Each structure stands twice: as C-alpha cells, then as structure tokens.
C-alpha cells in the first residue's frame, strides 16, 4: 500500500540541540500508530515539523507523495492534516460552535456580500456547516451547549472540542498530542474509544503522542519510540515493550524487563 505519510532522514536543530535527528517514519493509510518517548525526546517537535510550524533542517516530509516542506501551517491543514495540542489551545473566548467553524475556515466559500444580503448561497452554506458542526459535537460525545464559551467547559469537554475542531477540516490524517493527559481512567477509556472510532467510522489515519502506556498498548498497531531526538525502536506494542533499549530509555539502566508494562 502507498504511504500516506513518509519522513526521510528528518533533522531539526535548535542551536546546538538536535531535537529530531535523522528520523525515518512511514505510515500507511488507515492505521493508528503511537509515538512515545521520555520528556524532551522530540515527539512534539516531530508534530511541529509535520504541520509546518518548524521547517526541517534536513530531510524530506511527504504526504500522499507530495512534499510538505516549506508549506505554511494553514497550507498543510488544507492538504488534509489536523492536530490537537498537548496543552489545550482552544479559542477560549469563542463559543464551541465558533471554534469548530474556525476549523472549517478553509471550506467556506460565501463572500461577505453573500452574508450581508443573506443570499441562498450563504444560507445554504452556513446551515450546512453548522449542521456538520453539530454532527461533530455529537460524534465526539460533547455534553455542553454549542453556545457555551470554550473557556467555561470542564477539561475533558475541552479535549473533545479540540478533537471536533480538528475534524472540522475533514482531515485524512489527525495528529493527537497527548489526548488523555490529565484525564481520569473513565475519561481515558472514553477518549480511547473515540480515537478508535475516528479510524473505524471516519476512516482517518491517526498518529498519537501518548504517555499512558495503557492507551498506547491498547489501541496502537505500531509504536515508534524516540529518545534524544532519535528513533530507537519501532514495532508492535509487544515488540516495543520487550525492547531493552526502550526500557533503558524510560527507566535507566539495570531495571528489570517488563517494568513498563
């Protein structure tokens, strides 16, 4: 199968620090894969490279066979990649509905003239997109009102809005940066189910950065391990769990095998 995403020897330096070092990574469509690694391993930097926030110093990033290097974040989004953030970054003073509509930004066609004169084109489009936003709100299982300001929602709900907003651009690939951070076990289980539904029901390929091993091991088909910016292991959750280098990276030398399970 053709690769959806392909990273070839991607390197990113910040001054003397090599945040991402010669990383190769390939991803077939329809997968759920995870990237794990200790703090500062370069996971989020990798997301920032893919989404165009950083430009790689070396290497190539291909999405559906075309290079992403040099594109601005909004252009990357238009190609079909959405993301969420480790620290929630909703537009706090906008409503849930408005947040999702911003996510649909690239899909609006009506001009201000259409809006001012309430042309059928505007009414149709506005209705269509708002209805789709409501569908997304239901899909992620949000209980809050669409007219609530995002900053007033509880933490778990904000995570869901972020995912709904990321889905609003109709991505082919979604990058989730620690979607279960700070969640209780019940919320974590709920989010895990939601991630699986992204792939099963919407056909979206998922890359996950995650710290909770239960989540990683439960849903990922493949796990990539980064340490000090380098890829130190890759394989099925089982293989990675048994890999001595991974255990060492996480827990230091001399720790018994199986400790990270």
């Amino acid at each position, binding site marked *: 199968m053709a690769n959806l995403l392909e990273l070839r020897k991607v390197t990113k330096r910040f001054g003397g620090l090599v945040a991402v070092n010669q990383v190769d990574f390939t991803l077939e469509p329809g997968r759920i894969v995870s990237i794990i690694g200790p703090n500062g391993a370069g996971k989020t930097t990798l997301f920032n490279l893919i989404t165009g926030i950083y430009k790689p110093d070396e290497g190539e990033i291909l999405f559906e066979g075309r290079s992403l290097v040099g594109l601005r974040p909004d252009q990357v989004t238009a190609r079909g990649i959405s993301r969420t953030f480790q620290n929630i970054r909703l537009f706090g003073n906008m409503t849930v509905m408005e947040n999702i509509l911003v996510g649909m930004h690239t899909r609006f066609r009506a001009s201000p003239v259409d809006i001012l004169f309430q042309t059928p084109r505007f009414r149709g489009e*506005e209705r269509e997109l708002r209805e789709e936003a409501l569908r997304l709100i239901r899909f992620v299982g949000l209980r809050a009102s669409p007219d609530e300001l995002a900053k007033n929602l509880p933490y778990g709900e904000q995570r869901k809005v972020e995912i709904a907003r990321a889905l609003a651009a109709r991505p082919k690939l979604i990058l989730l940066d620690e979607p279960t951070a700070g969640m209780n076990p019940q919320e974590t289980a709920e989010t895990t189910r939601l991630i699986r539904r992204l792939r099963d029901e919407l056909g979206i390929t998922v890359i996950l950065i995650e710290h909770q091993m239960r989540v990683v091991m439960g849903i990922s088909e493949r796990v990539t391990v980064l340490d000090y910016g380098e890829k130190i292991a890759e394989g099925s959750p089982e293989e990675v769990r048994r890999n001595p280098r991974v255990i060492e990276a996480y827990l230091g030398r001399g720790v018994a095998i199986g400790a990270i399970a």
Partner: protein
Amino acid sequence: MRKAISQSVLYQALVVPLIQLFVFVAISLVVIGSVVLILAALFNRPVAGGMTLLQFVIRTLPQVAIDGLVIGFLYAMIALGYTMVYGVLQFINFAHSEIFMVGAFIGVELMLALAIPSTAPLMLIMAGILLAVAGGMIGSGLLAVVVERVAYRPLRGAPRLVPLISAIGVSFFLQDAVRAIEGLLNNAFYRNYPSFPVLNQQIPLASFTVAGQPVQMQIQAKVIFIIIASLVMLSGLNFVVNATRLGRAIRAVAQDRPTAALMGVDVDRIIMLTFLIGGALGGATGVLFGVRVGRIDPYVGFIPGIKAFTAAVLGGIGNITGAMLGGIVLGVLEGFAGAYLSQFTGGAFGAEYKDIFAFAILILILMFRPTGLLGEMVGQRA
C-alpha cells in the same frame, strides 16, 4: 431553524452593536453631563450676560454634548485602527495617525479635482464627499497594507520595540513625503477642503426656555453627515468582525496565532486584511475630519492620532467595543472641558487647557482600571 440562524447572525452583528453604541453615548452624556451640572450647582455664581453659571451650563449643555459626540465618533473610528492591529499583532502602529492624514489629503485632492460648485445641490455635494470618503478608504487601506508589508512584516520575529521604532520612522516618512509632494505640486503643504454653505448651515433641532431666555439647539448639516457616516462604518465593522468568516478568522488570530494557522487560517493574509480594514477606517475618518475642520496639513494626524490611541487604551486596548466607548468618552470629556473650563475657573484656564484636563481624567481612570474601561478582553480582540 434556517431562518432563525441567519436572523440571529444579523441581529447579533448589526442590531446589538448599534444598541450598544447608543447606550455608550447615553451613559457618557448622562454621567459627564450630570457631573458638570452638579459642579455648576455647587459653584453657582453670576457670570457674564446676566446669567448664573448653572443657567449658562443648562443653556449650552445640549449643544456642547453634540459637538463632543462628533469628536468622539471620529476618535472612535481612528481608535479602531490601533486596537485591531494591537489585537492581531500586540503592536502599537504609531504610523496609523499618518494613514489618517494621508486619507485626509486623498479626500481633499479628490474634492478639489471634482470641483463641485459651492452652490451645487445638496445631493451632488453629498455624492462628492462620499466619493472622497471612498477614495480615502481605498488609498489609506492600501497604504496601510504596504506599510505592513514593507516596515512591519520583515520585523515580525524581532523584539517588540523594534517594529515600534519602525512605525515611528514610517510616521516621519509619510509626513515628509506628503509635505514634499504637496509642496512640489502646490507650492504650499497645506490644503483647504472646499466649503459649502449648504453644509455649514445650522439646522435647528429643538428650542426651549431657560430662566426666561430662549435657547436654540442647533446642529450643522455636515455634522449630521459625519455622525451618520460614522454610525454606518462602526456598525459595518462590527458586522464584519462578528458575522463573517473573515471576522471569525481575525478573532482566532488575535487569540492564538499559531493555533489559528493550524486550523487552516492564512495568518499573513488575515494580518494584511486587518491593516486594510483599519487603514480604510482611518482614511475615511481623515476625510470626514477634513470636511469638518476645512484646512489640513501633513502634521494634522498627530494630535487626533495620539488622542485616538488614548481612547483605545481608555476603552481597553485590543477591544473593539472598548475603542468605540473610549473614543466617545474622550470626545465628550474634551468637548465639555473645552466649553466650560473658562467659565468654571473664572477665566483662569481657557479652552486651550482642555487636553490637560481630559488627560488628567484619563490618568485617573487608568489608575483605577489599568486595563481600560472594558478591560483587555481577548475575546473582543481583533
């Protein structure tokens, strides 16, 4: 359902801000007016013309209020340019006062080129001024975009003070550029807006009697025009910011630029459009200002610019509603100070001290509310 949505969008974007504007006007007039009346009652004594101070104030108050409001609307429109740019870039565009000045010059050149006879029918004159306003909007809007592209965008990553210095440089450059061009073309660097007797006539609004003396409330025809034009533009701006995709994108960029980019918003384009809108408002205001005062020169932007910036800070910088409120409050404050300082102080301080007075009040307000009257509400930013 379908109708409800689109109606509520229009309602939210047009009706609510207009109501808000009227509330602001009413509150500032009532509060500041009452203070003046109370002071007049406290220090009541005979003044010139066989009246007491209180009678004098009551007689002139409505007229002073109208004049103050007009200045206030002009400040509000310029203040929007500062506050919108601050919203998206957290940067004070000190060249905005010169964008305003260039608008005034484009307007005067257009009016002079049109050469509408001073006795022409009112509709023709109105059309001419509207054309000048449109020209000022286009010219100033495009100029603001060019300034952003040339002087600010290359410095986007630099420390915050650097683009500020660049803005001051642009300011001087534009002043002297206009001075040079006008000097070469006309041998003088000031210009006069054509004057139209129809626009200068006083239209009576109401008349009443105070202490046995008749009082006439009047409004100049061009002032009505300026008020209507400001209302149209202020509500137009609210509409754009609150009801359109562009406005949603501007607010998103103001709240979190990188995230907005990741949501598919082309940030550079939004910043450009913000400068375009702010510049266009500034240019339109420049023309209206020119129509009101008549004579303009390349340095005419400085004082209104500083005051509008003050208004933006007074209302809460970055806050669009705040800029409107700040402009109205500052204008009314200044109007009242200009009209009454001399009478209240027995001639010790004349109208020329109105700025000191207005700014003293301003400093007092900011001591107690450093974030401005409405606060720096990021949600309102843009």
